[in-house]
């Protein structure tokens, strides 16, 4: 590092507000940012001054991002957020002190950056993890010669809280899918003594990742979570309940195949295997990539990617609760869905839904159309 940088390091106590002022960011545009944050988190305008106050008086909190058995899709998703954007996050709101994909330093210097961030911010930094952790053999995944397990445990120790991003970090994801060749597990399988926010999805929606981050940065608390550790603000409703095609489901109007008349008219994709009824995520409300579209709007059934074990749900094009060749897998899916949130119930005909879930029974389209 140059001498210049060393000198500047001494100004450690400079707050976010100081930096904004020194960069000539006007009060007005700063408040606009706070308003956007409040609106995204569905909070009342009365909260705007509180957000502004919190941001202005904080040094940028240190964030350490660890990537284990992953595909970098979660990081790519992070960069797609239209609010808060990655640029505003790393320049104005956080100090992203370790992130393989984005950081300039490599090798020993990269590891030094992680160690320095841990030491300087012990007990205060936020740890973000994407990817699962292989327990079958420490050699299945290493960074700087260190196993993923050792690096996670060492880095988690001084973390104020952990955000597990993506279905691999939250529930094991694709490496954990049957037969789980590497013994992959999730973060909360290993860490029991820290607050963990689960942000599942394959990948999670861009603004959901940054929305959870900014909530934590703004309020210093974790948002209310459901029983799977997911923030209710983004994972509180099923895709099905918020789906714009729901009225066609209620009328019994279904696409029978891709590109048929029903598909063109935007009818329900239930018969094409849509997992919307058992999937809790914000796709139907926030949509993807600045509200451009989302899987169901683009004609493809929901894969259910924010639910535990969705990879083993019995087939992406097999209708929920419809007979499949593999009864066991269907039953597992139904059960998983039921645990997931109170669930698939809303999707089914009232007269049958309870007994179907209890008995892992099959509910047919005819039942649903009753």
């Amino acid at each position, binding site marked *: 590092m140059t001498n210049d940088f060393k000198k500047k390091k001494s100004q450690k106590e400079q707050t976010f507000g100081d930096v904004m002022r020194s960069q000539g960011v006007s009060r007005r545009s700063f408040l606009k940012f706070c308003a956007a944050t409040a609106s995204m988190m569905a909070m009342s305008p009365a909260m705007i001054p509180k957000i502004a106050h919190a941001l202005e008086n904080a040094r940028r909190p240190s964030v350490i991002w660890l990537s284990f058995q992953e595909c970098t899709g979660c990081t790519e998703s992070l960069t797609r957020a239209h609010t808060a954007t990655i640029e505003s996050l790393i320049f104005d709101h956080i100090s992203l002190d370790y*992130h393989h994909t984005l950081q300039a330093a490599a090798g020993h210097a990269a590891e030094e950056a992680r160690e320095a961030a841990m030491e300087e911010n012990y007990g205060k930094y936020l740890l973000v993890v994407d990817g699962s952790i292989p327990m079958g053999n420490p050699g299945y995944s290493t960074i700087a010669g260190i196993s993923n397990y050792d690096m996670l445990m060492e880095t988690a120790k001084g973390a104020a809280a952990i955000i597990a991003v993506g279905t691999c970090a939250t529930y094991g994801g694709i490496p954990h899918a049957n037969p789980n060749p590497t013994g992959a597990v999730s973060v909360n399988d290993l860490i029991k003594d820290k607050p963990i926010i689960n942000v599942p999805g394959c990948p999670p929606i861009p603004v959901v990742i940054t929305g959870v981050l900014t909530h934590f940065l703004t309020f210093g608390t974790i948002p209310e979570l459901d029983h799977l550790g997911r923030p209710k603000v983004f994972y509180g409703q099923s895709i099905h309940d918020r789906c714009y095609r729901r009225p066609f489901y209620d009328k019994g109007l279904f696409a029978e195949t891709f590109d048929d008349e029903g598909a063109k008219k935007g009818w329900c994709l239930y018969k094409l295997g849509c997992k919307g009824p058992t999937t809790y995520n914000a796709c139907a409300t926030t949509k993807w990539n600045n509200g451009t579209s989302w899987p169901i709007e683009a004609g493809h059934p929901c894969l259910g990617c924010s639910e535990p074990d969705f990879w083993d749900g019995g087939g992406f094009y097999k209708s929920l609760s419809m007979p499949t060749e593999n009864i066991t897998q269907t039953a597992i899916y139904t059960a998983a869905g039921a645990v997931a949130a109170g669930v698939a119930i809303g999707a089914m005909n009232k007269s049958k839904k309870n007994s179907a879930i209890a008995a892992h029974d099959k509910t047919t389209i005819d039942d649903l159309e009753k």
Partner: protein
Amino acid sequence: MSERIVVDPITRIEGHLRIEAQMDGNKIDKAYSSGTMVRGIETIMKGRDPRDAWAFAQRICGVCTLVHGLASIRSVENALDYKIPKNADLIRNLMSGAQYIHDHVMHFYHLHALDWVDVVSALSADPKATSELAQSLSNYPKSSPGYFADMKKKLKGFVESGQLGIFAKAYWGHPAYKLPPEANLMAVSHYLEALSWQRDVARLHTIFGGKNPHPNFVVGGVPCAIDLNSDSAINMKKLSQVQDIINQMKMFVDQVYVPDTLAIAGFYKDWTTRGEGLGNFLTFGDFPSNGMDDVSGFMIPPGAILNRDLSTIHDVDMNAADEIKEYISHSWYDYENGGKEAGLHPYDGETNLNYTGPKPPYDHLDVDQSYSWLKSPRWKGNAMEVGPLARVLMLYATGHDQTKELVNMTLNKLDVPVEALFSTLGRTAARTLETKIFADQMQGWYDDLIINIKAGETKTFNEVLWEPSSWPKSAKGVGFMEAPRGGLAHYIVIEDETIKNYQAVVPSTWNAGPRDGNGQPGAYEAALEDNHTLHDVKQPVEILRTIHSFDPCLACAVHLTDPDGEEIIKVKVK
């Protein structure tokens, strides 16, 4: 004296890559490339519905986010001889082309640029001189003295906060950085502009595939329907959005990416004489105009070039048992069929994990034994380079006019001979030039789509073989494509409506793989062994430059595993 230096993690890439370099003084004598993460996705795919395979395969990589999905559906379609509507091919071309443009620009600015651009030096730039420099290169509107003054102020405030975040501990001030402060400030400004641009143009995938990363595909076509009279299909509003995005892509490539590449390259001409590596290049071909069975209609032709000889293009047969084979002499796998020295064609491939490396935490790998989770693919026994340089050379050698024009313009501008292509800088420049070719071609595919719709042809999906009950009892096929990082091939064996075997032969496996049994290095290794002297072994920015010139994608490159030792699938990195 000879010292072994280690760079792990190699950052600003996809995935987990480790480089060990055996030094002879300050010169690299031998280099070893190791992929250090495995998941076993090929094994996980076994026994599943082939129509579901794309979703699993796509999660091989979230950076190349659509390529494995596309290669996967093509493998199923090839196995079943499943024809798809012309519109589906056009939409797939548009999505794949968008992937190139998005991915290459992000690679240049966010993964590669900091090897050449000194962020700290930008703080001493004169905004007015920066503006003059920018305006001399391009008519990109964000180029006023005020704009650069604001950028400098933002950067200064950031540095003065004392929290350098992702820019901490880098090799700033290293004498290998040659750009004047003004060029550094311009490049850092474009780093930020590119972050903003990329999330807008990624929306092309969202329109046709519902989301990005990881857009949706379907065997037999594309999932989106076209209906100009529906609010819930590809209609005029969505088509207009696609046109806008194509314009945005072309603007940024023409006004920012191409001029920046040429300007920066002008300060680093010494990098045209190192980092060549193998001199062998391979393409599988892609971007059909008349379906995947008509190779003559491909925009990128398939072929192999050996020993820089552009006058002879060798035919490549993806299915021939003696052409493409994978070796594991230095990989943490075992073959039941043939042992450690055998090479297997992907249809017969095996993926039995056997980690024999040092117990973590470790300092060095034992490079005389196995040292990577990547296999060593070979074409007729030759190690080959795949990717942008291979494609540009193939287009150049086969007389593609625009490619010849762009390559000659670049060589003239930099005043370097044609041999300069075979280098670290040549590889990086080839990526930029092909991006320009794709950015121009996008309009052609879009126009063809409009012509079809105008003629009443709106079909996007062929339902005829959708039901597995209509399939033969057994079938096998290969789905190949040119992914941004190079030729990609997925091999599938289908039996009784399920996946019996699945193998992915991935670009980054070709490039990043370890030595084979004959001691023949992979492309990364050979490139690092070509004329690399490190100014300071503790700050090996030279290694980063050459490795990043390949745009590594390690999640793609790693194979799968089969715990029963039965073999089956391998997954690689691209």
